[in-house]
């Protein structure tokens, strides 16, 4: 008797997210890609032969893989020490630093283009490095965007990892490095794999940043799909490339999934609060009182300081400085202008109103993403006994990552051909504005899943079994075992989802109503128009977006802090 409602409950947890993803992702994408393979009512797959016989295609696929692999590798290498310093150690200003590293993640690419390129361009402050238009510049920019994904995803698990295992290893004589390598690193494995797969998908589908920073010689599958779809409407070629993209992305997800499941197991999580009471100690003090840089926090602290200051802060400060310069003098004029609609009415609303729109839309999107993503994470965190069940759970996990790996153009154009009367409902969703938070949520869901899942999976199943044996109903197990532990990662998930929605531009630019533009859309409009006033306003508005993001992340940290201190 007890199992009927239970099955129904799990059924809902599976069906609701799948229906959402089906209507707002799978159906539009499949319809558009299908159009490319149907000519005069016949299926025509000759596009494959044409596209694959072009040497350019292979170069594009190669470049896509190369830049995504390098971008991911560098982000992980730099991000893991960052996760340690920002989440495992305690020091003054840590909260602010955590918020700052999130800022690049939400900046519109046009603005990152200005922030980066005006530094790197010949005659710019860093022009002597000759990085402008190089492959290295693309990789650096990809790290600029994605550093925070690694730091937050890995840090989220690290801060709750029970330190006693590592302490035991140390007590038994292992060197700090060895203790890290053999005890801590394997425990962080799932989170690192999680972060790496997200970053890889972001890098593989990066569009604006590749075009702006790399110049045109570094075309990727994504830029090619964009050009073939929006400029030539050559759906035959675009569809083949979309399939190639899907294959590449799926292959990566499968590999990442394997890597995760091999490592994933119940970890010993510190039960009541994050283990952050470890002070940042730069030097290792040996028993005889001598100080050595090895074994202390000096190396990770230096690496992190270098990344945060040079890679993240320099471009951001450059942006702030430029927003404060008007006609060669310091001025707040650009900020004062944010209360206006721009030179000669460039915008339909003021920048502050656009910021209000952004906050409203992002709140709705984050709410959708947390509900849907939370359900997915809950289902995927289970380990069914039967093989088939395990496979199904693995597939569900991968399917919800796909929105990060499929071109925003394919999704956007897919909306146009499917959502004129969705499911026969006579509302033209395409032009209603209601799609904006939905499209943002589709992108934010994978982030929620990836932040909550490592924590849920790390819960020792014996805890749940013990609760059941003691007579707790399944709902009560969820409430008393899963929920309290997952709740701590929820702050992170909400923050992430909110930030992703705040900065989302690709799909939003297709869907936002001109009378209610979001902040990134307003910035794009301003910078696309001549006149010093509009340019200054675009930069000032970007700084507002950056500050807004930092504030939201700080707030999310606060919420998390309260929860941690509570009864949970």
């Amino acid at each position: 008797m007890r199992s009927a409602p239970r099955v129904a409950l799990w059924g809902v947890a599976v069906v609701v997210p799948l229906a959402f993803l089906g209507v707002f992702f799978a159906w539009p994408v499949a319809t558009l890609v299908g159009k490319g393979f149907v000519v005069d009512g016949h299926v025509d797959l000759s596009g494959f032969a044409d596209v694959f016989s072009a040497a350019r295609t292979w170069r594009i696929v190669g470049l896509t893989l190369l830049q995504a692999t390098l971008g991911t590798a560098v982000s992980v290498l730099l991000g893991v020490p960052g996760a340690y310093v920002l989440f495992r150690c305690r020091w003054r200003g840590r909260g602010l630093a955590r918020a700052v590293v999130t800022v690049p993640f939400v900046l519109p690419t046009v603005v990152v283009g200005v922030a980066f390129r005006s530094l790197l361009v010949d005659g710019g402050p860093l022009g002597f490095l000759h990085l402008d238009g190089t492959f290295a510049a693309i990789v650096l920019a990809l790290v600029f965007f994605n550093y925070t994904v690694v730091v937050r995803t890995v840090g989220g698990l690290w801060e709750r990892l029970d330190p006693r295992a590592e302490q035991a290893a140390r007590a038994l004589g292992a060197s700090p490095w060895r203790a890290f390598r053999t005890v801590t690193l394997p425990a962080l494995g799932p989170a690192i794999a999680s972060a790496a797969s997200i970053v890889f998908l972001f890098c593989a589908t990066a569009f604006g940043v590749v075009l702006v920073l790399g110049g045109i010689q570094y075309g990727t599958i994504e830029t090619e799909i964009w050009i073939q779809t929006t400029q030539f409407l050559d759906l035959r070629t675009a569809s083949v490339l979309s399939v190639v993209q899907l294959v590449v992305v799926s292959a990566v997800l499968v590999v990442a999934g394997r890597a995760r499941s091999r490592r994933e197991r119940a970890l010993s999580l510190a039960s009541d609060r994050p283990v952050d009471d470890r002070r940042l100690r730069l030097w290792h003090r040996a028993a005889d009182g001598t100080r050595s840089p090895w074994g202390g926090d000096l190396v990770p602290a230096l690496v992190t300081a270098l990344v945060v200051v040079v890679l993240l802060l320099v471009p951001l400060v450059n942006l702030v400085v430029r927003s404060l310069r008007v006609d060669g003098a310091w001025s707040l004029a650009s900020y004062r202008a944010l209360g206006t609609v721009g030179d000669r009415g460039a915008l339909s609303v003021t920048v502050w109103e656009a910021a209000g729109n952004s906050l409203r839309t992002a709140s709705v999107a984050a709410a959708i993403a947390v509900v849907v993503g939370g359900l997915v994470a809950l289902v995927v965190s289970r380990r069914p006994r039967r093989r088939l069940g395990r496979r199904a759970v693995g597939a569900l996990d991968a399917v919800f990552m796909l929105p990060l790996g499929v071109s925003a153009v394919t999704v956007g154009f897919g909306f146009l051909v499917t959502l004129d009367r969705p499911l026969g409902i006579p509302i033209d969703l395409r032009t209603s504005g209601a799609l904006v938070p939905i499209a943002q949520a589709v992108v934010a869901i994978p982030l929620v899943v990836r932040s909550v899942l490592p924590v849920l999976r790390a819960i020792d199943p014996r805890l749940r079994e013990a609760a059941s044996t003691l007579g707790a109903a399944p709902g009560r197990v969820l409430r008393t075992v899963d929920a309290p532990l997952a709740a701590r990662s929820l702050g992170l998930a909400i923050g992430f989802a909110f930030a992703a929605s705040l900065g989302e531009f690709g799909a939003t630019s297709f869907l936002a109503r001109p009378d209610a533009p979001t902040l990134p859309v307003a910035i794009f409009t301003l910078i696309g128009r001549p006149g010093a006033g509009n340019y200054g306003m675009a930069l000032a508005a970007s700084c507002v977006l950056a500050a807004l993001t930092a504030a939201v992340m700080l707030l999310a940290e606060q919420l998390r802090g309260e929860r941690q201190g509570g009864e949970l």
Partner: protein
Amino acid sequence: MTGRATGRAKTLTALALTVAGALALAGCTSDGDASPSPTGTGAVAATGPVTLVTHDSFSIDKAQLAAFEKKSGITVKIVKQGDAGQLTNQLVLTKDAPLGDAVFGIDNTFATRAMEAGVLADYRSPALPKDAEQYLVGTHHGGATDQLTPIDYGDVCLNVDHTWFTTKKLAEPTTLDDLLKPEYKDLTVVENPATSSPGLAFLLATVAAKGEDGYLDWWKSLKANGLKVDQGWEDAYYTDFSGADGKGPRPVVLSYSSSPAYTLSKDESSTTTGALLDTCFRQVEYAGVLAGAKNPGAAQKVVDFLLSPEYQSTIADQMYMYPVSPDATLPTAWEKFAPLADKPWVVDPDDITTHRAEWIQEWTGAVVG
């Protein structure tokens, strides 16, 4: 399926008309012609909601639009869909379930693409000035047609930074060939024709100037002379161009003939940049009524409104283009500092549609490699 959709559209139109009629009665307005007219080819009702699909750069004065809505009984919903190319392609893609009733922003580089795909309904606006008829587009297949109504136009030209050339004591280049000279090495930045509408316009200018057989050689020589290609106008103008606020390194940029009106000196007596009028391609932007529009009568009125003296006089400030109406007023800075080319380079719209993809691909092969 089609029958049902049409039936639904009719029901909606009737509903809209009833509502509009009721509102008109309630407001005691004298708009007697708002009542539904019998079906037929003659009078079409012209009130109610209209969705105007346009590109990202579209802009209109709010008060002006509100005044038009009040006077006409039409409510205008604006939907922006990318640049001119994206806009056209999205309309082609959604032909069977149109995104709206009227369109503004298809330009002459995409005009026949839209016409051949059957995206537009015929409409010749009575408000079209005689002078603007030169911009009407025909196709080789159908002669001049009434599908697209010219609204504004402008020239895409190379711009130079006067200050930079004065400081360096170097004569400014004036022609396309000048740019290939060694003294102008590493000075030029343009936009990619595959990703930017001014980039495409300039590629067409070089095709017109150098011929289909010669344009690639010109581009190869320019590449050898240190050409920089950016993906979009923002990037080229604000990051690489020395004459704009970004203070980049290059004094020659691909922009518009109107751009110098926005780089005025402090006292507004001169401008610090100028357009090279021998390097220009003329862009014309069109409006039209979409085939399958739910409210075609009101969509026609919206096209008429875009040609009205009130809107035409705001085009320079709102759209950075020149109005087609000779009676429209221009800002003073434009009259002084934004001259049009006497003889812009021209490519037949039909040829553009036929060869666009081919030219861009050839260009990519030659310049990007």
